[in-house]
């Protein structure tokens, strides 16, 4: 066990509103006036970070991730509890802070670098390395206002990581710039970790989380919901998100009597009870798949009323909403005629997961013909979300794994 570099003990952050600002001013002078409303952005958060450990904070928007990072960085102070850290902290909560648009890249390194507490002499020594890492060429000596946003991000990241800290805090900034620079910045963070830096990462990309961190904390409404290994916590998180999506569906369905949502959500003559991704080898439900893994997409359907015909349509989208694949049982000549009320039908889509690493969502439609516009029994967008990881195969980008190999002749 390595030494503890960051100790977060029972930390809470309360945001208070007062009836009048005068009341707030009075509290500075020692008066005890109760605020009219309070909001706890973080509550009773405790964990320890050890040297060389990489920890990810995940959770939905508003779960308190950024608040916690600000508390650890020190820009806001905790209302309760205490934070202790051993060694230097470097926080990249936003890139490009402290930059002056009229300054050149080089001049901005002095200003923004000074904002990080670096002295001029140190910045002089770091300058060649920063310039080399940013790779913005002659723009380095041009005013910042002429930069593209990607170039600004490159300069900012090069500066923010110019010195290896003992603790590195990163908030959602790995997705800046082009993919070449993303990989380069990722590699630098990985190198820091190898050299003994502890890393605290906030990300919505479960791929990044799994690739870098050996521990994940799930936050919800300001509290720690789960703390453990990435597989365990990420799957729990995905299940939680799915549950919330299901409850949204219930809300939509409950508004059925109101009328206007009826056409969108379907007639409910046939409904989906269960949609799961299953590992055919173990029979276990999974939320994360490997590239090339064989998978079963299991859809269990209940027929509520007699219908003339039943067709199941499936659609797979990537994170940006692009359709990766889609078909239905009419096209595969498997439409079912005259299913009876009360009947339960299982559809199993067996496939090889030839998808690229990333996050994917399954939408389905239960309809009576090849067209979704007539007799839609149920339609549900992004009903199931799962991640695909590439841990065994050589690195590749894109949403499709093309089977093939590179042959070299010389």
């Amino acid at each position, binding site marked *: 066990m390595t030494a503890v570099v960051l100790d977060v003990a029972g930390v809470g952050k309360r945001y208070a509103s007062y009836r009048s600002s005068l009341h*707030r001013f009075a509290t*500075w002078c020692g008066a005890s006036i109760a605020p009219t409303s309070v909001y706890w952005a973080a509550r009773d958060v405790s964990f320890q970070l050890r040297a060389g450990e990489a920890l990810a904070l995940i959770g939905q928007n508003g779960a308190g991730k950024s608040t916690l990072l600000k508390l650890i960085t020190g820009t806001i102070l905790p209302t309760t509890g205490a934070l202790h850290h051993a060694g230097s902290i470097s926080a990249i*909560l936003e890139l490009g*802070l*402290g930059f*002056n648009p009229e300054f050149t890249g080089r001049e901005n390194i002095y200003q923004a670098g000074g904002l990080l507490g670096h*002295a001029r002499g140190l910045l002089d020594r770091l300058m060649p390395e920063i310039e080399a890492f940013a790779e913005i060429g002659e723009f380095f000596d041009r*005013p910042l206002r002429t930069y593209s946003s990607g170039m600004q991000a490159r300069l900012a990241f090069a500066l923010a990581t110019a010195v290896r800290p003992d603790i590195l805090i990163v908030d959602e900034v790995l997705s800046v710039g082009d993919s070449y620079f993303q990989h380069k910045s990722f590699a630098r963070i990985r190198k820091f970790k190898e050299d003994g830096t502890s890393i605290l990462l906030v990300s919505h990309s479960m791929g990044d989380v799994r690739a870098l961190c050996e521990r994940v904390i799930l936050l919800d409404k300001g509290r720690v919901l789960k703390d453990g290994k990435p597989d365990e916590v990420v799957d729990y998180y995905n299940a939680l998100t799915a549950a919330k999506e299901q409850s949204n569906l219930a809300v939509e369905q409950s508004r059925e009597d109101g009328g206007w949502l009826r056409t969108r959500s379907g007639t409910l003559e046939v409904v989906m009870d269960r949609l799961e991704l299953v590992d055919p080898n173990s029979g276990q439900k999974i939320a994360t798949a490997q590239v090339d893994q064989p998978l079963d997409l299991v859809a269990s359907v209940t027929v509520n009323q007699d219908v003339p015909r039943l067709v199941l349509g499936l659609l797979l989208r990537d994170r940006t909403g692009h359709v990766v694949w889609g078909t239905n049982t009419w096209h595969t000549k498997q439409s079912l005629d005259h299913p009876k009320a009360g009947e339960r039908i299982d559809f199993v889509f067996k496939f090889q997961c030839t998808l690229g690493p990333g996050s994917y969502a399954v939408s389905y439609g239960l309809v009576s013909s090849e067209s979704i516009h007539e007799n839609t029994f149920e339609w549900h967008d992004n009903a199931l979300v799962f991640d695909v990881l590439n841990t065994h195969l050589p690195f590749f980008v894109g949403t499709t794994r093309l089977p093939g190999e590179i042959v070299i002749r010389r």
Partner: protein
Amino acid sequence: MLETAFAVWKFRTFILASIRGELKGRFARSSLGAMWFILNPLAQAAIFALVLSEVMGAKLPGTTDKAAYPVYLMSGMAAWGLFSEIINRSVNVFIEFAPTLKKIAFPRICLPIIVGGGALLNHALLLCAMAVVFAFYGHFPGTSWLAIPLGMVLISAMAFGLGILLGVFNVFVRDVGQVLSVVLQIWFWLTPVVYPLNVVPANLSWMLAFNPMVPLVQLYQGALLHDQWPPVTSLIFPVVLGLLLVALGLLVFRRASPELVDVL
């Protein structure tokens, strides 16, 4: 107090670079660049001189020198300009830097220091420009110009203390900034910058006694126009008030600091 000073020292690179940035931002991409340092105050003084002395027939009593009024005006304007610039910028500086304050841990006291430093540097350049302009009028710097740095220190101390105080309050109650612009205008006309002190009616002169800017503006006017040193007794009030305001400003800043970022 000592750790604040130490923190400021540690962030000196940032402070110096930011002051340079303030200056650069002001004149970047204007073809005349730093020339505007001379042109702006010159134009302002010319307008006031034209309107007040030529059109309205205002004259400085006890002098026949045609240049006396513009010199008097520019001296007072320079002193007032330093004061109002520091206050006007300090009152908004925490709001202006909100994103940085929220995301980067650095000593917040750096911000008013940058504002003060930028304004002082501006002011020094303005004085150099004025020396050139005065030379054309036949007014050459005398030994009493050495009193000016003292005036600069006293004006900035008052403005710095008041600026931090109002800057902190402005974060919580944004009306402060709005009210301030009106108050500063009234304050300007209650200070003998445009008009000479002796035109103030006797029944109103008590108001001038409560205005700490009066002796400071007079210090500038005396030194630059008449080559006179300020009477020491006149400076007691500004010194005491300046010290008080700096102490109060820093105290409130310290108390408010934990909550400052919470409401930004």
